[in-house]
């Protein structure tokens, strides 16, 4: 049963990712990305990583993609021209490179023939909120705080770039 759910979610994830890239309409692309994120969250759930799954939906599907959609809708971007209209040598090289990378990944993953890992109770413990929180505030304390600084800096930076007015306090205004 679990295997079937996995196959379903995996196919959904791959299909939505492909559809996202191929689709001409940007809003549709964004929606397929949401679908992709949700199906990946489902795969996390199968791996008993509940916290990660829920956070993935809250942060990516719920917050970031909504803002994406916002921008796309407000900018009213026209449908792009299709990728496959005309043949260009660039695309061909890119395609070959993609094949190379894909085969490398497949080769590297070839050792792991079992599709789904056996999830022991210890592994399930790791995915809980308690375990994540515990590690976050002990071993990964410094990275956690650093992330706070990173996000603050990003917000301050975005505001600095978005402000149009010349601020008071500078010389000639």
């Amino acid at each position: 049963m679990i295997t079937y759910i996995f196959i379903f979610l995996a196919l959904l994830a791959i299909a939505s990712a492909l559809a996202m890239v191929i689709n001409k309409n940007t809003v549709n692309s964004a929606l397929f990305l949401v679908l992709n994120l949700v199906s990946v969250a489902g795969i996390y759930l199968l791996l008993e990583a509940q916290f990660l799954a829920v956070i993935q939906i809250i942060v990516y599907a719920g917050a970031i993609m909504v803002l994406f959609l916002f921008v796309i809708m407000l900018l009213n971007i026209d449908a792009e021209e299709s990728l496959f209209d005309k043949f260009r040598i660039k695309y061909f090289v890119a395609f070959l490179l993609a094949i190379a990378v894909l085969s490398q990944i497949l080769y590297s993953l070839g050792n792991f023939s079992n599709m789904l890992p056996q999830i022991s109770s210890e592994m399930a413990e790791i995915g809980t909120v308690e375990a994540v929180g515990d590690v976050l505030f002990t071993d990964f304390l410094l990275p956690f705080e650093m992330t706070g600084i990173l996000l603050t800096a990003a917000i301050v930076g975005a505001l600095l770039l978005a402000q149009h007015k010349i601020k008071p306090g500078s010389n000639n205004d």
Partner: protein
Amino acid sequence: MEPVTTTSYIVLGIALFLLLNSAALAVYSERRVAAFIQNRIGPNRVGPMGLLQPIADVLKLILKEDVTPIQGNKTIHAIAPIIPVVTALMTVAVIPFGEGLYVTDINAGVLYLLAVASLGVYGVTLAGWSSNSKYSLLGGLRAAAQMVSYELPMGMAIASCILFTGSLSMLDVAGAQEYWWNFFRNPIGAVIFIVASFAEANRTPFDLVEAEQELVGGFHTEYSSMKFGMFYLAEYMHVVIASMLITTFFFGSYHLPFAGYWLPEMSVTAKAVLDVSVFTLKTVFWAFVFIWVRWTVPRFKYNQVMKLGWEQMLPISILNFIGLAAIVYAWYHFI
């Protein structure tokens, strides 16, 4: 926990059945309460006391012609109304109705609630965009901005409840209020949560989304027939769900006030009946408050909504959280 008997499951079944139909009931009660507040009679022709009015409404909606804007995006236009209904129903999965009476228990249940709530934004936004109409688009964008803004104080208010629970499971949230409701321990959080719930459900005084004077019908201007009906139902489902969440997080869930101190031991079945009744009554009360507020409080301006959310509720909720965290820490470590 004691074993849950078949009777308990029957009680649970009845509760869930009522829930599914609660939207219809809520529509009816809104019209009756509105009439009562405005000194009118309200719908009283269909069935006894007008109780069959919702069925008539739905029948009428189904029989109407379904109009789709020709310039709009038809697929998304069709999908959009389903999203709020689905997310509203998904929420119920983790809410406990009584001791041992719940659909499922997720380790990160509270986060699950927030996640599902955050997905609800899509329905409104997409409906606004796919209609290809200025009114709809503005309504959808307003709704999305408002919901995203108020998710933050709401999350902080919930987090301040979790301080007393020490667990993100909804069962523990309910169980921890057996002696003291969270409302008594965390009144500021409760007020913030209630206000944010109103905003999340897009109800007055936060119903900027469908401000008639400015936006006609807001995001559902271009919807008709049962697609409109689904938005309509989803709105009332959200009211009911919001009432249930207020009850669960701050008003003792299925516990009577200070029940742990005085409530005698009971048989499982009796407890189940009592729990479900208590829970239902509280939910009905809060749903009534939602309607009551709608017909008494005027609508905010949009900038006021944003200002209230970002400049007042968010800082207050964060300070409340930090203060409570300090108190809880001191309580466990120094007293």
